[in-house]
């Protein structure tokens, strides 16, 4: 159009562009449905119109893809939400500040608060946790707090959650940090009400305790009567009856030991065992145990010696220490047929180690890692094996551990004897003080948790 004036050209451009206005108006509200009419005449605007039409078509295509994606995402979210709600365990998710961001129905059911009531609140304040005595667990000791600060997973089953109505329930809780691109983004608290498990546990302990006590009455009668028959309290005993009556006495004694061990295990597992920790002389106690066991070593013609360094004051419960020594030295005697048993002590930092060395038949390496488990009997019962319940070393280990020490197999091989060892904290050492404090707390716990006991401590 060479002859047109500038004014005419301007109005021509305007009129051509006006055709686009309705399209832009619709696009501004998200409607890309109208197509552009491409004019017949071919001029500078044709390219622009075609371009815009192509753009509209591409936008339309992508929009419909997005809509589809959205629908399938919504489906997935609903699916995940349904799964989340269907998990039988309570789940509370928190963010990096321990604020509650998600909570499933079972969690709401157990705690009594709805998600709406707790959303955005700090879990430590929103869901209080208490110990057996009803004392609140300090915020910094809450599993959700420690998991957040340490980045480690925690499992806790020693505490109670407080419900909205202030009642409590024992809770088993697994706390796992939520990692997002390698960084902690929050905490996943998964928990369950374990009232029933706790009740069953207590029932089991009570049953074993009661059964053990009930078993002891007839056993005491058999033991007592047999000993009186043997002594001739009921008249002379024929020679041919001496052996069977002796065997009855021996078997009864074994049963009594077995019942005692079972009772001890039940106490250990029910955490109902008291440790009266005082400063005791290892060499004095060992000498005392030697006196009790001497008849056995004399009978077998084997040695029994003590090699002790001067400072041997340890912090221990005297009776439990006697039981540990009795058990380990008793075992050594049982499996030694020549040579003898030597007990020695050695200082080891805050501990004193006690070694029980024998020249007995030894233990094959296959059995080494089973030794301290319950009901493990490595050797068949022998005639001297009164206390062969398979519980001895298990009890020994738990006693040593409770007193702050440990017990281990130092070395043993078939035909080359055995060395068992245990350690106890030295009197006055830091560890000794710590253990003492711990037992003080446990003692008051024990009194609190069994208020129904009328002097029947089992």
């Amino acid at each position, binding site marked *: 159009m060479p002859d047109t004036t500038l004014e005419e050209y301007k109005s021509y451009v305007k009129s051509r562009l006006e055709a686009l206005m309705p399209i832009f108006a619709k696009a501004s509200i998200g409607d890309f449905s109208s197509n552009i009419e491409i004019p017949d005449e071919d001029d500078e605007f044709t390219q622009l119109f075609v371009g815009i039409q192509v753009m509209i078509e591409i936008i339309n295509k992508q929009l419909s893809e997005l809509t589809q994606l959205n629908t399938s995402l919504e489906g997935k979210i609903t699916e995940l939400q349904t799964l989340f709600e269907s998990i039988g365990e309570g789940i509370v998710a928190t963010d990096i500040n321990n604020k509650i961001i998600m909570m499933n129905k079972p969690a709401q059911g157990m705690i009594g608060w709805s998600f709406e009531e707790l959303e955005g609140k700090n879990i430590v304040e929103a869901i209080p946790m208490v110990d057996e005595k009803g004392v609140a667990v300090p915020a910094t000791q809450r599993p959700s707090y420690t998991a957040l600060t340490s980045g480690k997973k925690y499992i806790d089953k020693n505490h109670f959650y407080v419900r909205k109505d202030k009642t409590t329930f024992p809770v088993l809780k697994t706390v796992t940090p939520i990692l997002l691109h390698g960084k902690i983004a929050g905490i996943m608290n998964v928990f369950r009400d374990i009232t029933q498990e706790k009740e069953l546990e207590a029932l089991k302990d009570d049953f074993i305790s009661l059964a053990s*006590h009930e078993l002891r009455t007839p056993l005491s*009668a058999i033991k*007592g*009567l047999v000993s009186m028959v043997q002594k001739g309290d009921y008249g002379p005993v024929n020679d041919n009856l001496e052996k069977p009556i002796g065997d009855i006495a021996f078997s009864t004694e074994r049963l009594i030991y077995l019942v*005692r061990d079972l009772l001890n295990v039940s*106490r250990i597992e029910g955490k109902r065992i008291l440790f009266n920790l005082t400063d005791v002389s290892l060499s004095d106690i060992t000498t005392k145990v030697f006196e009790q066991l001497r008849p056995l070593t004399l009978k077998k013609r084997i040695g029994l010696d003590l090699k002790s360094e001067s400072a041997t004051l340890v912090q221990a419960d005297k009776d439990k220490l006697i039981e540990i020594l009795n058990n380990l030295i008793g075992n050594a005697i049982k499996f030694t047929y020549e040579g003898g048993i030597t007990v020695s002590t050695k200082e080891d930092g805050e501990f004193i180690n006690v070694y029980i060395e024998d020249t007995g038949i030894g233990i094959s390496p296959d059995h080494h890692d089973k030794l301290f488990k319950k009901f493990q009997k490595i050797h068949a019962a022998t005639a001297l094996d009164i206390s062969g319940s398979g519980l001895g070393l298990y009890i020994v280990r738990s006693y040593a551990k409770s007193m702050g020490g440990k017990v281990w197999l130092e070395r043993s091989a078939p035909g080359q004897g055995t060395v068992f060892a245990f350690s106890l904290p030295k009197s006055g050492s830091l560890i000794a003080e710590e253990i003492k404090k711990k037992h003080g707390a446990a003692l008051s716990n024990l009194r609190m948790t069994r208020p129904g006991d009328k*002097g029947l*401590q*089992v």
Partner: protein
Amino acid sequence: MARLLIVEDDLILIQMYEIAFKHAGYEVTTAFDGDQGLEKMKSFKPDLVVLDILMPKLSGLEVLQKVKTDEELKNLPIIILTNLDGEKNVKEYLDQGAIGYLIKSELNPDELVAKVKQLYEAYKKQ
């Protein structure tokens, strides 16, 4: 010889203990529950009582508490003989005034007689 009252609800055990103590020269009488035990303490007037814990009617602990608050009986020495061996028990009964705490299944009757004698002698010396 000393007059002894055994309070024990198991018929076989009580007969066994009775024979053992009679052999050792004690003058023995028996009671089968806590109530009867308290009665016989007043009627038989023993020098010494051997007392079980788990019994029908009055338990050993209740008997012990009654004895210690009874003007007539409070100085009567009482030895607990039971199969309950929890350490808390031992302490509780000794705190309540028992002069000894013995475990049935750990002692043969002759050993029991010796222990009772030992505890009684020690008590008399006080």
